[in-house]
């Protein structure tokens, strides 16, 4: 297995890099850590608030025996949650994924995703490592470039629904049947999955996963029912999916405290269980948004806005627009003495989330209504 740097058109070795800055450097570094059993904290250093949060933690507790990587994801309470993963979590998960690919033969992986999240590391790096095939990547891909790569026989593409939607929009007259696509972060909408197969004569397997649980289920093209991966046991509580598997984290870091995870792991995904190996995703807890593939707690954003001068209360609702590449838009209802200005909010969000452009619409002049126990439940226009 080798890493091919498509920007500089050269092969790159795995090596330990103190402060990896580019996608290639991050890939080289995480693979070196993985190969040599070196623990590392993997996170998106372009998010200032996350960097600040991690630096504020007692650094000694970040290093836990037997762990390979510590990832950070947005917790439902608004604070980032640290998720420890073992090497065994990743290897067993990769083996389960490969079983679902059947007898397809691949000679390389092309990945559009970064290596600062579990999806990039586990699927974009560990899977090709196990297959002993090269990883091709570059800093930024355009849809046209991805099509050119996918035209080459035996390519496994690790990407996101954004690219599936974008490829559907450029409608290239090419046959990609010699390649296969994997996506994660959210299921591809049914119509997009169907259109993709019709346009390109190849399939997209959509991985349903989270940082805490690892892979849970998958579906292909326009299927609606998710099938569990080997080793994944599912049930539900209050309509929300619970998962036990060899891929689930054993330890999380919550508000600076290490917590052991006792299976089954309770997710925030609202599901209908159809059989012991099949389920349907109905939705997600309303306080988690997925923006450009990143999970963000609406409570965290509400907290950021409520800390601004003159803002008294904020309620955020998530609106979906499946036609857009960024398909989740935040409707932000603001109770304040003066209206919240979009430019000011954009600047504030940038200070917290870095170069991530969050799609939102502000509704000023509202009064947020609360339940008898103080929970924000709605709004009234003033």
């Amino acid at each position: 297995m080798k890493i091919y740097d498509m920007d500089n058109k050269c092969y790159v070795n795995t090596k330990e890099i103190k402060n990896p800055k580019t996608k290639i450097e991050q890939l080289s570094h995480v693979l070196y850590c993985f190969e040599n059993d070196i623990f590392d904290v993997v996170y998106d250093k372009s998010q200032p608030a996350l960097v600040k949060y991690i630096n504020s933690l007692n650094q000694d507790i970040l290093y836990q025996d037997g762990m390979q990587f510590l990832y950070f994801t947005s917790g439902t309470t608004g604070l980032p949650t640290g998720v420890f993963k073992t090497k065994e979590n990743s290897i067993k998960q990769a083996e389960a994924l490969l079983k679902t690919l059947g007898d397809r033969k691949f000679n390389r992986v092309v990945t559009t995703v970064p290596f600062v999240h579990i999806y990039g590391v586990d699927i974009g790096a560990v899977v090709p490592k196990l297959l002993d095939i090269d990883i091709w990547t570059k800093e930024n891909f355009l849809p046209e470039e991805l099509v050119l790569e996918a035209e080459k026989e035996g390519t496994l593409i690790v990407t996101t629904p954004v690219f599936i939607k974008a490829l559907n929009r450029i409608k290239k007259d090419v046959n990609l049947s010699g390649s296969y696509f994997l996506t994660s972060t959210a299921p591809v909408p049914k119509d997009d999955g169907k259109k993709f197969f019709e346009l390109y004569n190849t399939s997209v397997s959509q991985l349903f996963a989270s940082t805490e649980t690892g892979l849970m289920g998958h579906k292909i093209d326009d299927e609606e029912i998710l099938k569990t991966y080997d080793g994944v046991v599912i049930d539900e509580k209050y309509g929300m999916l619970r998962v036990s598997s060899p891929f689930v984290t054993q330890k999380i870091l919550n508000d600076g405290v290490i917590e052991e995870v006792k299976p089954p792991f309770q997710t925030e995904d609202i599901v209908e269980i159809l059989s012991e190996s099949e389920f349907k995703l109905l939705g997600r807890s309303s306080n988690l948004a997925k923006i450009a593939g990143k999970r963000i707690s609406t409570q965290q954003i509400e907290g950021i806005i409520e800390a601004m001068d003159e803002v008294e209360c904020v309620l955020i609702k998530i609106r979906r627009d499946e036609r857009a590449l960024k398909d989740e838009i935040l409707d932000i209802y603001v109770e304040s003495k003066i209206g919240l200005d979009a430019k000011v909010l954009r600047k504030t969000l940038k200070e917290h989330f870095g170069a991530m452009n969050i799609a939102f619409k502000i509704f000023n002049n509202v009064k947020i209504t609360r339940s008898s126990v103080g929970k924000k439940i709605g709004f009234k226009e003033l």
Partner: protein
Amino acid sequence: MITTDDLKEKIIAGLGLEDMGIDEIEDDSPLFGEDGLGLDSVDAIELTLIIEKEFGVKIKDMGESENVFSTPKTLVEFINSQLESDK
């Protein structure tokens, strides 16, 4: 020939930046990163699709086009040069 205002209108509409006016986007301000408009990698993909749909110009290679995406001005210069060479 298109103007930077033509492009800004399409950016605002296509990327859902309804809260912004074209006069709030400087011709020379960066489109991406933490300064300027602050667009991200998903916006970059959307932007290439908008340019193809609205102006009929395909952007095929991010490496060659890196400087093209710097500012509204550089992007308009690129679009116009492509339109000119297609004549």
